[in-house]
């Protein structure tokens, strides 16, 4: 998988790349508008991370250029602009997702995963992780053919965890992912633990191995 990170903050770009390495993504960088335009017109990427505010141009123009050439690259905007209008403008211009800085790398990874999945596996809407099968369209989880009844939150949690395989996800990232915009105003992440516990129990009951590991007090990890 090839990913282009268009971001003028070098440190952030390398952090993203380092995090995504575990997923076997190959990351390329573009720090300026010009180099970004060059790269997207020559190469194809599975996903492009796009910072809207570049030193020499408006990131939205890159989006427009991509659409004009009818390229199918998945695009996720990463921006410091958090107004709804900016989000709508970005999504209208053809971005697949919009993430406001600062974000959790796990959240970014999960979104990249979801964008790529949608772009690449149009017809294969099943995710197979050893004995676990996830039907992404029906939102159905089966273990060894046996159906597992999950709540919406538990299902979201499972998808989020599997989108960050072998990486530690902070409790804060999970909490924010589960409760949307409001959670980042909250500072009590205890409810995450309850959902994890339920999910683990349901999967174990269905005969799945225990893939969800607790990493010290920091967070959780899908280890499969």
């Amino acid at each position, binding site marked *: 998988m090839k990913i282009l990170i268009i971001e003028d*903050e070098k*440190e*952030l770009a390398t*952090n*993203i790349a*380092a*995090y995504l390495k*575990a997923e076997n993504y190959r990351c390329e960088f573009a720090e300026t508008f010009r180099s970004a335009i060059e790269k997207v017109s020559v190469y194809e990427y599975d996903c492009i991370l796009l910072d809207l505010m570049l030193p020499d141009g408006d990131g939205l123009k890159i989006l427009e250029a991509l659409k004009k050439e009818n390229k199918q690259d998945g695009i996720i905007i990463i921006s*410091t602009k*958090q*107004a*709804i209008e900016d989000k709508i403008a970005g999504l209208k211009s053809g971005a697949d997702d919009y993430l406001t*800085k*600062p*974000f*959790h*790398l*796990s959240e970014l990874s999960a979104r990249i995963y979801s964008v790529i999945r949608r772009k690449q596996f149009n017809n294969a809407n099943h995710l197979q992780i050893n004995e676990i099968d996830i039907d992404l369209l029906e939102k159905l989880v089966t273990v060894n053919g046996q159906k597992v009844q999950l709540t919406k939150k538990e299902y979201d949690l499972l998808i989020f965890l599997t989108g960050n395989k072998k*990486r*530690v996800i*902070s409790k*804060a*990232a999970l909490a924010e992912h*589960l*409760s*949307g915009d*409001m*959670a*980042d*105003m*909250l*500072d*009590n992440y*205890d*409810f995450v633990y309850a959902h994890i516990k339920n999910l683990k129990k349901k999967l174990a009951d269905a005969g799945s191995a225990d893939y969800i590991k607790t*990493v*010290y*007090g*920091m*967070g959780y990890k899908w280890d499969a």
Partner: protein
Amino acid sequence: MNRLLNKTLLYYTFFSAVILLISAPVFYGMLQKLYTDDVDEAIMLRKKEFLTNNIATLTGNDIPTWNKFNRDIRILPDTITSQPKDTIIQETFLDVLAPEWEPYRVLYTNVEIQGNSYVLMIQLNLVESEDLIKAIVWIYLGVLVGLLIVIFFLTRFISNRLWKPFYTTLQLIDQFNLEKLVTPRFDEVNTYEFQKLNQGLNKLISESLRSFSAQKVFTQNAAHELQTPLAVLQSKLDLLMQDESLTSSQAAVVQSLYDSTSRLSRINKNLLLLAKIENNQFADTEKVNISELINEVLPYFTEQADGKKLSITTSLQTAINLLSNKGLTEILINNFILNAIRHNVEGGRIIIISAPDRLVIQNTGIEHPLDTAMLYSRFGKNATDTRNNGLGLAIAKEICDRYNWQITYQYDGLHNFSILF
């Protein structure tokens, strides 16, 4: 509080009365002295006339006749020794015609007539002069009182006119509101001091406005600029977490850093939001149904509420439509519910009531009323909860101010926050 004009007139009246009270006797005394001097002079003149014109031709036998026809200049035997000689003194004599004691100026002096010693007495009645002086003093007082009254009203009239620009300025300052960013327009005045005052105020106000907007811009820029380093920090911590060689104590450090970073980005987000509200970036309004909105946002809080075993009950009237920005109204409700959850006690209660004219949020919490002075100020946080970033209610207040809604707080065992629409 006394008005300036009233104070002026009060002082004026007081001092006028003092002047009147003091000046009347002084004036009276002076007049009397002047008149007495005059009379004394006349006495001395008569003495001189007597000595030059009469004494040479007068014989001892003439004396009874002289005394018979002269009431005021009499020649007495020199047996009178009790009175001082050659100085004019004041004496009272009984007037036989109108039987009463009357004041006289009297001179006794020794004279010699044909070798015999006599005492010459010259006297002048002061009675008519007394009446005259009284009349004069009364006229004087009348004129003075009249004058003072005229001056009183004149002062009032002139002061009113003179101070008018000052009161206009006062009124303008009274209406001035820094957050509305409108400079008051002072009228052109032709009094030097007031012109100086208005100029000074103008300068002060425009400087305040400038620093106020500079501060707003600064807050927004600062918060905005902080987002990127925050993103770097957070991503670094996300990476650090992946390090498999982390020991448990290192992990604890990472976790604590992570928490602080989350808090930092929360504060930053709220600061940005505040700046945006202040900069009028939520200008578009629509009809917002408050009760529907509450029902929409409540599910997001159930997990937090469950975590503290809180019971949330609602009593919502339908069809309460407010003309406002939906996003802002949602933030307002969120912040109040969040506040009610955050400052609640384990197993506590939250009650949300909506009515056409108000939204009330009641919650259990610490068992004493909150300090209302600090409640809505930025970072004016409750000392017991250091995690609270202290901006939630400040944002709520800012939003309410925008729509002229009123927030009130009451404590009656429950903490009651009411928003009056």
